[in-house]
C-alpha cells in the first residue's frame, strides 16, 4: 500500500489498481464490483489484491450479468455508495446498455437533481492484443452521444491514476475507458501531484505544422508518428484529449488555429466516431483558420476483424502519416 503514497514508475494497470486502492481507503462508500474482480483480481489483474485487503463486502464478485451489475450499482448509488463497476471487455458492455443510457444517464435529470449517481464504469477497450471477437472494440461514441454520461480515457499511467480518482469523486456517472493494450506501458506517477481537471485536454507534444488529436491508446501512436515526422522535417503537435464527453474543444481549437491543420485518430470506426464531431465542430469554430479539411484516421465500417488482420485494421504510424501527408498537401 506504500506505493500509493509515493511516486514511481507504474504500468497503467497497476496505476489504476493503486488508484482504486487509495479510493477504497479514502472513502468507505467506495465499492469495486464486477465479474472476477475478487480472488482473480480481474482478467487483467487491475483489481489484484483488493478483495484480500478490503473484503468481499467492498470488492464484490458479481453474477455473470452486466445489466444486473449496472442496475444494482445504480441501486447502491441511490443508497449512498460509490460503486466502481468493471465490465470485463468492451464487447460485453451491451447487455448493460439499457441500464446505462436509460437509467444511469438520466436519473439525475429525472429527479430534477435530487439524486446523484456517482457510478464509475470501467471498460478495458480497444484492440491490438490479438484477442478473439468482442475483446477489441472501441464503443466510446455510443456512450459519448448520450447526455448524462461522461466519458474519459487516459493514455498514460499518471492520468490513469488521477483520472480514476477524479472519476470516483465525480457526482456524475463516468465511463472510464481503459486502453487495454497499453496496460503494461510504464510511466512516472506522482500520487501527490495536483492533477489537471478531469475533462481538460493536454498538449502532449508541441508542434507548428499540423495538429494530431487522439485519446487513449492512439496517443502513443500519434506521439510516435510525430517523432517519425520530425525526422522528415515536419513539426506535429499532439493533443491528448483525455475526455470524450465533454471534449475540450478549446484546447483543440487553440492548437488548430496555430497549425491550421487537424488530423484526428481513434481506433473506433470513423463513421460517426468522435472524430466526426471534432471535425464538424472545429471546422465551424475555426473555418477561416483551416488550410485543409480535418482528416480522420480510424476503424472501418466493418466488424472488428480477426486478430491476424488487426494490425492492418488498426490505425498505425503509417496510416497516421499518410493522413498527415494528405492534409499537408492542401
Amino acid at each position, binding site marked *: 500500500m506504500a506505493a500509493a503514497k509515493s511516486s514511481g514508475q507504474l504500468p497503467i494497470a497497476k496505476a489504476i489498481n493503486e488508484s482504486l486502492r487509495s479510493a477504497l481507503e479514502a472513502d468507505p462508500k467506495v465499492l469495486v464490483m464486477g465479474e472476477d474482480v475478487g480472488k482473480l483480481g480481474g482478467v487483467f489483474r487491475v483489481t489484484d489484491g483488493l478483495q484480500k485487503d478490503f473484503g468481499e*463486502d467492498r470488492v464484490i464478485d*458479481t*453474477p455473470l*450479468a452486466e*445489466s*444486473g451489475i*449496472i*442496475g*444494482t*450499482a*445504480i*441501486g*447502491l*448509488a*441511490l*443508497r*449512498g*455508495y460509490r460503486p466502481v463497476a468493471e465490465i470485463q471487455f468492451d464487447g460485453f458492455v451491451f447487455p448493460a446498455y*439499457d*441500464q446505462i443510457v*436509460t*437509467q444511469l444517464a*438520466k*436519473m*439525475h*435529470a*429525472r*429527479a*430534477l*437533481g*435530487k*439524486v*446523484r449517481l456517482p457510478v464509475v464504469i470501467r471498460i478495458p477497450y480497444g484492440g491490438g492484443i490479438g484477442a478473439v471477437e468482442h475483446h477489441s472494440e472501441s464503443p466510446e461514441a455510443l456512450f459519448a452521444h448520450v*447526455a*448524462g454520461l*461522461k466519458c474519459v480515457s487516459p493514455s498514460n499511467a499518471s492520468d490513469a491514476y488521477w483520472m480514476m480518482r477524479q472519476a470516483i469523486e*465525480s*457526482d*456524475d456517472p463516468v465511463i472510464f475507458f481503459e486502453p487495454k493494450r497499453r496496460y503494461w506501458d510504464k510511466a512516472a506517477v506522482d500520487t501527490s501531484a495536483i492533477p489537471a481537471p478531469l*475533462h481538460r485536454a493536454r498538449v502532449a507534444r508541441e508542434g507548428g505544422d499540423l495538429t494530431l488529436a487522439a485519446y487513449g491508446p492512439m496517443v502513443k501512436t500519434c506521439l510516435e508518428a510525430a517523432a517519425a515526422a520530425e525526422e522528415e522535417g515536419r513539426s506535429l503537435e499532439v493533443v491528448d484529449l483525455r475526455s470524450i*464527453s*465533454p*471534449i*475540450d*474543444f478549446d484546447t483543440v481549437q487553440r492548437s488548430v488555429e496555430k497549425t491550421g491543420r487537424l488530423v484526428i485518430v481513434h481506433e473506433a470506426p470513423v463513421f460517426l466516431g468522435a472524430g466526426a464531431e471534432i471535425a464538424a465542430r472545429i471546422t465551424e469554430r475555426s473555418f477561416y483558420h483551416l488550410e485543409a479539411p480535418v482528416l480522420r484516421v480510424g476503424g472501418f465500417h466493418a466488424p472488428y476483424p480477426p486478430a491476424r488482420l488487426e494490425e492492418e485494421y488498426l490505425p498505425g504510424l503509417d496510416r497516421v502519416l499518410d493522413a498527415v501527408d494528405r492534409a499537408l498537401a492542401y
Partner: protein
Amino acid sequence: MTVESTAARGTTRSSGKRTAAKTPAKKAPAKRKAAQPTAPAAPAQPELVQLLTPEGERVEHPDYAIDLSPDELRGLYRDMVLTRRFDAEATSLQRQGELGLWASLLGQEAAQIGSGRALRDDDYVFPTYREHGVAWCRGVDPANLLGMFRGVNNGGWDPNSNNFHLYTIVIGSQTLHATGYAMGVSKDGADSAVVAYFGDGASSQGDVAEAFTFAAVYNAPVVFFCQNNQWAISEPTEKQSRVPIYQRAAGYGFPGVRVDGNDVLAVLAVTRAALEHARSGQGPMLVEAFTYRMGAHTTSDDPTRYRTDGERAAWEAKDPIQRLRAYLEAEGLADEAFFAGLEEESEELGRGVREKIRTMPDPDTMAIFENAYADGHALIDEERAQFAEYLASFADDPADSAAERGN
C-alpha cells in the same frame, strides 16, 4: 357519481351473474354468500391466499393471519377510497386536457394499499408508473405524481423524502435498482426492507430475472411485489408465462406466494410477512398479487379491442373496495357518518388535486439544460449559452420572430 360508484356499480351489475337474487350488493352480503354453495373459506384457486372473500366474509388461512383494529380497518378502507378518487380525478383531468396521459390503478387499490400499509418508514419503495396507491401510503403529494403525466417533468419528486423512488417507465429496470439498494441496506447493517413493484408483463424482462439472481446470491432484503393485473397492455398473462408467476421464485432459491390482490387484508398480511422475511436476514421473497386492471392500460388505450366486457364484469364482483365495505357494514365497524365523511374528504381531495394541477406552472424553457449533470458539462454550458442568445435574438429583432414566419 361518487368515488365509490364504480365499485358499487360493478358489484351490482355482476352480482346478477353470481347470485339469483338481484339485491343490491351493499345491502345483502349474506344473501350473496348463501347463493354460493361452496364454503367461502375455500378460494377458487387453492394457491391463493385470501382473508376476505369477494362477498366480504373473513376467512382464515393456515399461514397468514391478521388482526386489525376497527380504526385500522377503516383506515385501509379510507386509503382505498381516496386512492380511487384521486385516480378518477386524474383520469378526468386527462380528458379535460390537463394531463397528456394517465395510467389508472382502478381495481388494484387493495394490492397497493395492502402492500403500502405494510411498510415501515425506513423501508424503500421502487414503483412502476402505476403505484399511485403506494405513493399515497408513503405520503407523496398526489399532485406530484401528476407532473410527469402533465409533461412538466419526468418525475421530479425527491425519492428520499418519502423513501419512494421515482416512477420507472422502462419495464423491469427498477427491480435491479431495488436489489442494489437492498444490497446497500445489508452493507449498512440496517434492518430496513425494500419493495420492488412490477407487473405481470415485466416478469418476462431479463432485468427482472437478473434482479432475482442478484437478490438471491446476496440474500438482499428485497420483496419483489408483482401486481398480476392479468394484462400487459393487450397481452394476457399467458403470453408471459405458462405457470403462475409466483412459482418463478423457487427456481431462484427464495419463496414465492400468490395472494388475492383484491383482498386488502390478505395483501397486508402477506406483505408484512415478506418484509419480515427480508428484514430478518432471510433474503428476498416474491409476492404475486392476483388482481385486475379494471380500466384501460392508459388513457391512450382502447381495451375493447382485446378483451370482453364479461371479463371486466366478473372482476367487478371481486372489487377490493366493495368487499371491505361489505365487511365493515356487516360487522358494524363503520357507520353512515363515516362513509359520508369519507365522501366529503374524497370530494375535497379531488378539488385540491384539480386546483393544483390547473395552476401547475410550465417549466421555464431553459430548464431543458438543467440537471443533465450534477457537476456540469462544458458542452451543455455552450449549448445553453447559444440557445439563450438565439432566444434573445427574437427580442432584439421583432421583425424576425416566429409569428412573422407564420409558425
